[in-house]
C-alpha cells in the first residue's frame, strides 16, 4: 500500500508539475489551425485590470485556450463525450449521414430584421431608381436536410425562409431548397460544392431571365480539404475533395478584386489560397468586399449585382455565361452606405441577394 501511495504521488506530481511547466514554457500557438481562429493573448496586467477582475478573467481564458497540446485534449474530450457518454453532439457539432454539421435551432428574428433592413437600404439607395430587377434566394444550411432526418434539433427552415420572404417582399423570391441535397454540401464544411450546384445556377439564371447553362470541365484539387467543422469536431474525420469548374468562358473572363488600395486583376480560382488554411477560399479568393467578373464573350450586355456571403464565391463564376459583367458585393466587408462610390449601378440590370440562412440568422456583420 505504501508503495502504491508513493507511486500515486509521483505520477500525479509528474503530471501536474510537468503540465504546469509546459503551460509556462510552451503555451499553444496564438492561432488555432483546427478551429481557424485566433486564441486569447496574455491579458494586460495593470492595477486597473486587476481591480476590475479583467486580468483574472482574461488569464482564465488565456490558460484554457493556450493550454499545451490543446487539440489533443479536445480530441480526448470529443471522443469520451461521443463514445462513453454517447452524447449526440459535441459543443453543438454532430455527425450524421457522413456529414459533420452544427446544431442551429434558434430563429433570431432581430437579426433577420437587421438583414432585411440592410437589403432595403441598398434597394432604396442604389437599385430602386435604376429599374434594377431584384431577386432574393436564401441558401439553407445543410442542417435543413440532415437534422430532421436524423432527429437533431434544427431551425424551422421553412418558417425561416417564409419570414425572410415576407420581410423582403419587394424582391422576387427564388426557392432553391428543392434542388439541394446533402451531397451538394461538403461533408466537413458548411459550404456547398461548386460541381454540384450548376443546376441551382441554371435555376437562378432562368428566374432572372438569362441562360447561364454551359458545359464545364471538372478539376480536382490535389490537397485534402478539411472544412471548418473538422476542427470543431476535434476527432479525425475523412477529408473532402474540392472540385472546381472551368470552361473557355471562365478562362477568358477578367476578374478584378477591389480590396484595400488599387484594384488587382486576378484569377477566378486562387491556387495559392487552395493550398492555404481554408482551401474553400480559392473560389474568388475568399473574403473580398468587391469583385467584378467581366465576360468578353457575353451574348448580352446585361449586368448582375450579386450581394452575397461566402456561398456566393463558388456560384458566382457559374453566372458568367449569361452576363457581361457580374459585380460581387460582400457587405460584411464594405459599408453599404459607401457602395455608390465604388459601384456604378446600371439601369435595367439584375440584383441577386444570395445569402445563407446562417448569415441571415446572425447578420450583425452586415454593414
Amino acid at each position: 500500500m505504501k508503495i502504491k501511495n508513493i507511486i500515486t504521488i509521483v505520477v500525479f506530481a509528474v503530471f501536474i508539475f510537468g503540465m504546469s511547466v509546459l503551460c509556462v514554457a510552451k503555451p499553444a500557438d496564438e492561432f488555432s489551425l483546427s478551429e481557424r481562429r485566433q486564441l486569447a493573448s496574455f491579458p494586460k496586467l495593470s492595477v486597473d485590470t486587476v481591480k476590475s477582475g479583467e486580468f483574472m478573467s482574461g488569464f482564465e481564458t488565456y490558460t484554457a485556450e493556450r493550454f499545451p497540446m490543446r487539440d489533443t485534449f479536445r480530441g480526448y474530450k470529443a471522443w469520451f463525450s461521443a463514445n462513453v457518454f454517447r452524447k449526440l453532439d459535441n459543443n453543438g457539432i454532430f455527425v450524421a449521414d457522413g456529414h459533420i454539421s452544427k446544431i442551429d435551432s434558434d430563429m433570431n428574428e432581430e437579426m433577420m430584421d437587421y438583414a432585411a433592413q440592410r437589403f432595403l437600404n441598398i434597394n432604396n439607395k442604389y437599385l430602386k431608381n435604376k429599374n434594377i430587377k431584384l431577386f432574393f434566394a436564401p441558401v439553407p444550411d445543410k442542417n435543413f436536410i440532415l437534422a430532421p432526418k436524423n432527429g437533431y434539433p434544427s431551425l424551422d427552415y421553412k418558417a425561416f425562409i417564409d419570414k425572410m420572404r415576407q420581410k423582403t417582399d419587394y424582391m422576387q423570391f427564388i426557392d432553391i431548397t428543392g434542388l439541394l441535397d446533402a451531397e451538394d454540401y461538403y461533408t466537413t464544411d458548411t459550404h456547398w460544392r461548386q460541381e454540384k450546384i450548376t443546376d441551382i445556377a441554371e435555376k437562378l439564371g432562368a428566374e432572372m431571365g438569362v441562360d447561364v447553362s454551359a458545359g464545364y470541365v471538372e478539376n480536382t484539387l490535389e490537397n485534402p480539404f478539411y472544412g471548418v467543422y473538422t476542427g470543431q469536431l476535434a476527432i479525425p474525420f475523412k477529408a473532402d475533395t474540392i472540385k472546381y469548374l472551368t470552361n473557355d468562358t471562365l478562362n477568358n473572363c477578367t476578374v478584378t478584386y477591389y480590396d484595400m488600395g488599387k484594384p488587382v486583376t486576378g484569377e477566378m480560382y486562387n491556387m495559392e489560397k487552395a493550398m492555404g488554411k481554408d482551401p474553400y477560399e480559392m473560389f474568388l479568393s475568399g473574403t473580398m468586399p468587391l469583385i467584378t467578373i467581366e465576360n468578353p464573350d457575353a451574348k448580352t450586355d446585361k449586368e448582375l449585382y450579386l450581394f452575397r456571403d461566402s456561398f456566393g464565391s463558388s456560384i458566382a463564376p457559374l453566372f458568367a455565361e449569361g452576363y457581361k459583367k457580374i459585380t460581387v458585393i460582400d457587405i460584411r466587408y464594405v459599408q453599404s452606405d459607401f457602395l455608390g462610390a465604388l459601384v456604378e449601378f446600371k439601369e435595367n440590370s439584375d440584383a441577386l441577394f444570395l445569402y445563407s440562412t446562417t448569415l441571415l440568422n446572425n447578420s450583425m456583420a452586415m454593414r
Partner: protein
Amino acid sequence: MLFSSITFLYYFLPCVILLYFAAPKALKNTVLLLFSLVFYAWGEPRYVFLMIATVLVCYVLGILVEKTRGRFLSKVFLCLALLFCLGALGYFKYADFFIANFNKVTGLGVPLLKIALPIGISFYTFQILSYVIDVYRGDVKAQKNPLTLATYVALFPQLIAGPIVRYCDVEKQLTDRSHSIDKVSVGIRRFIMGLSKKILLANTLGELCVAFNASDEKSVMFYWLFVIAYMLQIYFDFSGYSDMAIGLGKIFGFDFLENFNYPFISRSASEFWRRWHMSLGSWFRDYVYIPMGGNRVNKLRFFINIFTVWFLTGFWHGAEWNFIVWGLYFAVFLLVEKFFLVKKLEKSRVLSRIYTLLIVAVSFAIFSGNSLTEALTNAGGLFGVGTDFSVTADFLYNLRSYGVVVLIAIIASTPLPKLIKEKLEGNNVFKTVWGIIEIPLLLGLLILSTAYLADGAFNPFLYFRF
C-alpha cells in the same frame, strides 16, 4: 478561483504545494493564508478586505468574549460579533431582497443597492460564527494568533463552497497537524474524484438543464428529465466540490468532516437532510435549533423551532422567495413524517425511497427557479400544470443525447459502485487488477477533466448565491 479551472490546477496548485512543503513548519500556515487570500482575491479583489476585516473583528471579539466569560460583557461581545458578521451578510446578500419586497408592499420606489455578493460569504460567515459562539460557550479557547484564525477562515480548500468547517473540528490541526505519504495520496485520489464528478458529470448534466431552460417545448416528461438532471447536477457539483475540499485538506494535513453521504438513497426527508450538505444541517442544529430548545419543548414551540430553522436554511441558500418556500416545504414534510409517517416509512424500503425521491424532486424543481414564479412553474410542470404530456422533439433529443450520462450519474449517486468494489475486494484477482488499474484510471480522469477544461466546455459556478 475555481478548482475546476486550468488556472487552479496547473498554475495555483503546483505553486502552493511546492511552497507549502518547502516551508518550515512555522511558516506553513502563512503560506496557506497568503495563497488563500490570492485564491479569494482572484475572483473578488475588493471583497478580500471584507473577509480580512471579519477575521480581525472576530479575532478581537473572540478574545474579549473569552476574557469576560461568565459576565454580562461576554454576551455583549458575542452579540457584537453576531451583529457584525450577520450585518455584513445581511447587507451584502439580503439588502436588495428586503428593499424589493418593501417596495412591493408599500408601493414605494426605494432604489436597489445592486451590490455584488462576495463569493463564499455565507460559508465563511458561518465558519467564523461557529468559532465565536464556541468560544462563548467555552467549547474552544480563543485563538491568540490572528494569522492562525485567518488561516482557518480563509483556507482555500473550503472557502467558497464548503464544507462549513467548524473551528472546534480543526483547532488542533491548525497548529499541529501531521503530513504523511498515505494522507497526501488519499487526498490526491479524493481530489481527482471530486474534480471528475464536477467536470464530467455535473457540468454535462448542467448542459441538459440549460437546454431545457432554452426550450420552447417543455412537456411533463421534459420537466421530469430536467429535474432528475438538475438534482444530479447539484449533487455532483456540490459533493464534487466537497470531495475536492476534503482531498486538498488531506494534502495539507487537515481532516475535514464529510458533507454528503449518498442522499438519494434516503428513506425520508429527515434522513435526506442527514445525508445532504451535512455541515450546514449540523450547523443549524447546533447553533439555532438546539439553542431554541430543539424538540424538548411543547408542540407549538417545536413547530416554531422547526419552521424557523428551515426558513433560515432556505434563506441561507439565496435571497429569493423560492429558497424560503423550498426550506419551509421541507419543514412541512419533516413535521408530517415525525407525527404521521415515521412508522409507515419504516415498513417498505421501496415505497419510502420512492416517496423521498418524489418530494426531493419537487423540492429541486422549486430550488431551480430564479424566482418564485419560475420555481412554481417548474414544480407545476412536473404534474402537467401549464403543460401537456406530449413527447416533444426537444425532449426526445435530449433524452437520447444525455440518457447515458443521466444513467451513469444515477448509479454513481448510489453506494452501488462502492458496495460492488468492497465485495470484490475479497477476490485476489480483482485486488491485483484493481491495484494495477487504479492509478491509470485516476490519471485518465484527470486527463479527461483537463480535456474538458481545455475545450472550454460548459463550466458553471453554482455558488454565486451562497
